[in-house]
């Protein structure tokens, strides 16, 4: 199946992009500003190419990440919407407003490349509509993000160890960096910490971190595809307790920078670049991409993604599925030019166009089509980051983030329920069992607000 789709993908990559000529007209599109300028340049290139081929006009508005999020929420609240939101920001906006029946269905757009998309991407393009009581396709998958491990190879070596020494199983993998810290402290390094865990209640990082540990400890089915919550499953509960214990315990034991308790999403990147910690578990390759141009020696020689063993296996030695956040193109109900918005999306998701868009963005984001992962860009043996990243998030086992199955998880994330449990353990010395018990009660209350048929 995978081989078949790869072959099909290769053929599509070689074929020139196809453009349907809708009546020459204009559509407005909002997109988030890239982390590096190359991302915006690649987007503009794709838009210009589409305009040239179709005769249509795309009025592109690029806004910084946080304000764009506010702009989208404000637009959907007021009803004054653009024709196309090119970057679901936040990603769960698809599910939040899908629940309220606020998006135009785009199954016909996705259908044009359905065989190309990963199963996780297709799941991530859907949302439950509580008005018609159905799960429908409202998003067009464009790119994806996962949570890789970023490691200072130079600090590991300074501690007298090697990247090749990093164990392959979960706890041993992270315990390794505690040993690195101990060794560095013995050398007189006053402020270097082994682990950059975001034990905070800001942004999306702490939720992503907790969920990665939850899944690694066997809690993968906390919410199943039918949207049902499984907190009564002892396996899930144990996994959550273990995750809170490991993450909170590492902080309590002094292996995480103390300021992590109040980090926002960018602070861990800054702290990592300041060599405050040996490793960081953080979404996308933004950590690496941000310094590629200014400090190429760091990118190519000093920092590695995952290290030799790749993304760690669980404690039993089985691969751990990566939780994938899919970025979707969305058309709000009330959009004036749905036809052009759909035509642009059909053009944009052609493998050749989408692949180039992601690669020109330096690979911060992952493609959503397995065929694209086989390109020389992603498989470049000289790049210490891309191959492991794409393996973890596209070619290896993956699951979509759980708000895809039930919107309630988005509220769990935004209310920082798991973050609070981590902090309770880390800062206030609360027992992990008690912290999780409290968290589970709150999660059940939140799920009760989102009944699904």
């Amino acid at each position, binding site marked *: 199946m995978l081989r078949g789709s790869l072959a099909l993908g290769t053929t599509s990559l070689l074929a020139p992009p196809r453009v349907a000529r809708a009546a020459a007209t204009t559509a407005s599109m909002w997109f988030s500003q890239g982390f590096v300028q190359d991302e915006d340049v690649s987007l503009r290139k794709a838009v210009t190419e589409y305009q040239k081929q179709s005769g249509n006009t795309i009025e592109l508005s690029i806004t910084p990440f946080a304000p764009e*999020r*506010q702009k989208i*929420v*404000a637009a959907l*609240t007021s009803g004054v919407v653009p024709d196309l939101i090119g970057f679901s920001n*936040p990603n*769960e*906006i698809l599910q*939040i407003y899908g629940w309220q029946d606020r998006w135009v269905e785009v199954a016909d757009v996705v259908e044009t490349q359905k065989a190309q998309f990963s199963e996780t991407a297709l799941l991530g393009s859907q949302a439950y509509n509580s008005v018609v009581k159905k799960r429908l396709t409202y998003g067009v998958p464009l790119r994806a993000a996962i949570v890789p491990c970023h490691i200072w190879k130079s600090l590991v070596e300074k501690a007298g160890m090697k990247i090749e020494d990093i164990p392959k199983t979960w706890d041993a993998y992270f315990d390794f960096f505690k040993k690195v810290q101990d060794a560095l402290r013995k050398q007189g390094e006053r*402020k270097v910490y082994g682990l950059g865990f975001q034990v*905070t*209640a*800001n942004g999306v990082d702490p939720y992503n971190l907790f969920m990665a540990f939850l899944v690694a400890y066997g809690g993968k089915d906390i919410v199943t595809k039918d949207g049902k919550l499984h907190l009564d499953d002892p396996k899930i509960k144990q996994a959550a307790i273990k995750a809170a214990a490991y993450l909170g315990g590492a902080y309590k034991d002094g292996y995480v*920078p*103390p*300021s992590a*308790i*109040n980090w*926002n999403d960018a602070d861990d990147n800054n*702290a990592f670049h*300041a060599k*405050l910690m040996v490793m960081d578990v953080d979404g996308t390759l933004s950590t690496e991409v941000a310094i590629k141009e200014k400090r190429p020696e760091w990118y190519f020689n000093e920092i590695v993604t995952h290290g030799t063993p790749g993304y760690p296996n669980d404690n039993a030695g089985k691969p751990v599925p990566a939780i994938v956040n899919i970025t979707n193109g969305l058309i709000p109900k009330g959009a004036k030019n749905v036809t052009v918005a759909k035509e642009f999306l059909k053009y944009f998701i052609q493998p050749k166009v989408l692949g180039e868009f992601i690669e020109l963005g330096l690979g911060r984001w992952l493609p959503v089509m397995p065929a694209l992962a086989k390109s020389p860009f992603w498989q470049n043996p000289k790049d210490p980051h891309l191959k492991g990243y794409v393996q973890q998030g596209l070619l290896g086992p993956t699951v979509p983030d759980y708000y895809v199955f039930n919107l309630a998880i*988005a*509220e769990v994330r*935004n*209310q*920082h329920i798991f*973050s*609070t449990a981590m*902090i309770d353990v880390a*800062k206030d010395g609360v027992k992990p069992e008690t912290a999780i018990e409290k968290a589970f009660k709150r999660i059940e209350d939140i799920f009760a607000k989102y009944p699904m048929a």
Partner: protein
Amino acid sequence: MDNVSVVEVGRPAVRRRTLSRYLSGHLKGGEYTWAVAFLVPYVAVFLTFVVYPIVYGVWMGSEGKLYRELFSDPIYQSSVVNTVLYLALGVNVKMFLALLLSGFFMRRGWWMKALLMIFILPWAVPQISTFISIHWMLNGEWGFLNNLLFKLFRIEGAYWLNDRWMALGAVIVSHIWKWTPFWTLILLAGRMAIPLEISDTAKVDGATGVRGFVHITFPLLANLYLICTLLSTIFLLGDFNTVYFISGGGPANSTHVLGTLGIRNAFDMAQPRLGVAAVMSALPLVIPLVIVLMRKLRTAEVQL
């Protein structure tokens, strides 16, 4: 109908004339048209940018269930406590310091003018960049403050933003640092407006130093001081930048105030109505403040 008097029948016409005269005042013909033409843009702007946003906001936050959800949220409860503390300490400490400093800056001499120029710098520089700088200065691991403490005294400084009360303290101190110069200037202007004859006469009568301040200066400044305090309270109630850029509402959402909580609910949680409700819940405090302020501003007596 038979019982209706001639006066009663004639009254609507009288009313119409009165209303028309009331609307037009003493203006006639073209004057009246010009007056309306000048008024229309103002009314349109007022309706669009004042009335509409307020009505829309009230409408968005009008559902009772929003407030039930809000009041049961532990983060909201701690945000209310933080807001009260922020207002009580932030406004009063700042205004009291401003009052004292305005007296200090009444001294004469070129060096006093130079000092005043340096003193107003925190207020003059853009607030977001200064608050971000303070946030970085207070970083526990690599912040300027802790590095300085270590270099000078070999002391490991505290993690200033890791504890709720220290983080809130940092927010309040930063606000005071930022805005004291502004209110000092206002009160300084107030002091300078006190007629010299009054203070000179008081001095002749022996009211110098503290006595002069208690019996002459402060009574004359009292109204201005109260108006400044009320205005500052209203400004601070809607403050977002200080908390957002200094503590970020953390650790663990423990230092939010209503302004930052509203934005968090509206955009981070994508629940705009809940965000509006958080801000609207401050109205029982804002409305009385505005009423008192208006009454004070209407005071007809000659006061500073």
